[in-house]
């Protein structure tokens, strides 16, 4: 498969997942602000933007939830917004259009079309978050049902898995940043669609520690960090043609595998004690793995620099 197309598939996976997870994170935070009068709005917003990787010097003097929603949800000019993620996913899909199944292209295109048509910004929370989750489910489901499991699919899944590990870590970080009370963990679990599963798994015993453990380490829950990293490893396995004898030649595989093993074999107490730092470390791993994948598989797509010759 063309390197450029592989890269597009990877980023379609990432951007769709990013849009969905940003919606999930905002859903939790807007609910917390609404339901708990004791929460400091400005501090919550500050922490939330920081957890999404936005530098404090980019914050305005008076920070409120409307500003956060503009930056993270609505503004097509903001690099972090859901609008931008959906537009980028569509742009990547447009560049790989001949390789996508037609229904997949159409569902991505119609999703995107709500943005220039201004239907997207007319949606208010929490409906907008629900809409984004539904569209992402539609896109993922269509891909799942229509794509052959070739390289293109592996790259799509790889992008989705890495983004999901990264975003789940931000979801966890944003919960702990706002104080991490039991109720907030409940909201976080709910926004991940995991609350009932979590209750059943832990037989109704809700603790913050258990919630963090579930979101990070559960091997069966598809949004957990460990599950996502494992899925990414699987994709890299399917893509690489290394004969499995000793170690991993592939840099991305090495980075992701090591981090997953550290999470799984580390002590939960240590992990929970320093959640924000651990989550930041995880995000750095995801970024480094992306660089490694880009170098190995997409580098062929780098623009040719042609120095004009005098004829």
């Amino acid at each position, binding site marked *: 498969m063309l*390197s450029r*197309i592989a890269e597009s598939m990877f980023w379609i996976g990432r951007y769709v997942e990013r849009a969905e997870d940003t919606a999930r994170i905002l859903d939790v935070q807007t609910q917390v602000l609404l339901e708990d009068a004791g929460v400091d709005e400005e501090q919550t917003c500050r922490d939330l933007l920081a957890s999404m990787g936005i530098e404090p010097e980019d914050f305005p003097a008076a920070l409120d939830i409307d500003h956060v929603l503009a930056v993270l949800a609505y503004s097509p000019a903001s690099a972090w917004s859901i609008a931008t993620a959906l537009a980028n996913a569509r742009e990547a899909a*447009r560049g790989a259009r001949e390789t996508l199944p037609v229904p997949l292209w159409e569902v991505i295109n119609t999703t995107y079309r709500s943005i220039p048509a201004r239907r997207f910004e007319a949606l208010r929370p929490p409906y907008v978050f629900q809409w984004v989750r539904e569209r992402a489910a539609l896109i993922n489901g269509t891909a799942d049902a229509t794509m052959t499991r070739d390289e293109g699919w592996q790259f799509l899944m790889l992008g989705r898995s890495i983004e999901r590990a990264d975003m789940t870590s931000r979801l966890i970080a944003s919960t702990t940043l706002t104080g991490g009370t039991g109720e907030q963990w409940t909201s976080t679990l709910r926004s991940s669609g995991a609350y009932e599963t979590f209750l059943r798994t832990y037989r109704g015993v809700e603790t913050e520690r258990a919630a963090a453990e579930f979101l990070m380490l559960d091997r069966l829950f598809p949004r957990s960090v460990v599950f996502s990293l494992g899925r990414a490893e699987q994709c890299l396995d399917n*893509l690489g043609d290394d004969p499995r004898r000793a170690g991993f030649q592939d840099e991305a595989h090495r980075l992701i595998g090591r981090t997953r093993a550290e999470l799984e074999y580390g002590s939960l107490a240590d992990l929970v004690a320093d959640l924000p730092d651990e989550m930041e470390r995880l995000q750095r791993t995801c970024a480094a793995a992306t660089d490694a994948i880009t170098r190995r598989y997409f580098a062929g797509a780098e623009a*040719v620099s042609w120095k004009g010759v005098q004829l």
Partner: protein
Amino acid sequence: MSSMFEGYGTVEPASPAYDEMFDGDALRSPYLRLRDSLGRMTTPELISRVEALQASYLDQGVTFDIGGEERAFPLDILPRVIEMDTWSTIESGVQQRVKALEMFLADVYDAGTVFEDGVIPRRVITTSSHFHRAAATIRPANGVRVHVSGIDLIRDNAGEFRVLEDNVRVPSGVSYVMTNRRAIAAALPETIAQHRIRPVAGYPQRLLAALRAAAPAGVADPTVVVLTPGVYNGAYFEHALLARTMGVELVEGRDLVCHRGEVMMRTTKGLAPVHVVYRRIDDEFLDPVHFRPDSVLGCPGMIDAARAGNVTLANAVGNGVADDKLVYTYLPDIIRYYLGEEPVLRNVDTWRCGDADAREEVLDRLDELVLKPVDGSGGKGIVIGPRASKEELDELRGKVLEDPRSWIAQPVVQLSTVPTFVDGELGPRHVDLRPFAVNDGDRTWVLPGGLTRVALAKGELIVNSSRGGGSKDTWVLAGHGDARQQEQQQQQQQVGAVTTSPEGVA
């Protein structure tokens, strides 16, 4: 008479243009079923279908780009119908023309007997901006240079199809022929069911077969790619559709690299060889080594790879000399010269401003003629005399005198009209027709129908999409006559079998 067509055209002053559906108040025969079927529909019903049609094109992303802005390609809901006999003439005319153009190009880039024999002056070719000496040494693998052509036709005041121009470089629009058919089938299912229409969906397979047939000798299973300038190109939708429906890679210049005289593409598993490039990039951007050194749309080394016979470029480099509008004026003679036949499809009458006598007449009649720059495309630079101001005509006169070779003149031909649904009502709008032909070396196949472009503004004669033109689904009837005949014959045979046998027994 259905209410929908009532009063069609009568509000307008009588136009000299040929209307393809109505002859005065009388309906022309190819449109009988269309009128009957649509006649059962109310205007609100039609409007709701038009709206659904437009929405579906946006959702599917059936678009073209103008200056980076992506727009849905406008498709009128009323199809244009062409009956079988008329189509047969077009088909053989296009085949004849492509054959002559192939022979002409082969001659131009080789012996040049057409010049020696005085059919066309050599300087007409050597002064053409599309003549590339680099192409002279490239021998096409199966002799084909014009793998795909789009011969633009118009229907004149008398209803005769005439050739307006030849496109043998990178003719576009065929994707809309295919998507238009599917969209109209969804919008007017009951109407389409009542017609027997020759299908258009087979185009990509024909094209792929022709491209594979053009592969360099000795390549058993050639790799074909479509080369596009990228997503911001006006025709990107088409490039993607063709690649997808042929099941081949759509590559950009940056995906390609030339290595030891071969063209390779960059894949996740390293470089992979490419044998046939269906390029949708103009010559000038194809290879910075030979053409524009500042272009990165193509790939350095591609021309040398083609010359070495390792890759086939389709269409061939240098074809532009054949669609130069000045060469067009010689085409009837070129057909007679190579084929010894009269042209099946006539040209539109044309004056060459390079000829002193013709120029004098043209300059006298500037205000009644259409002046066209010979190397313009997409309606660029065209001046319609009767609609131009005195200042425009004076400026034009200066340009023609300064560089007469660059201009041709034609009478204002009233392109034929077809009823078109604009702003909630039907009105006559001017159309042209671009049939697409694919040459696989053995045979030139003409896609039944082609792209009908329609000028959506009232009275507008320029139909290009860059001027706000739209399109119509174009139906070539398989002849409801012959379908019925076949049915009748079958019935007769069955009836005959039944009736003769008792007789036989008796």
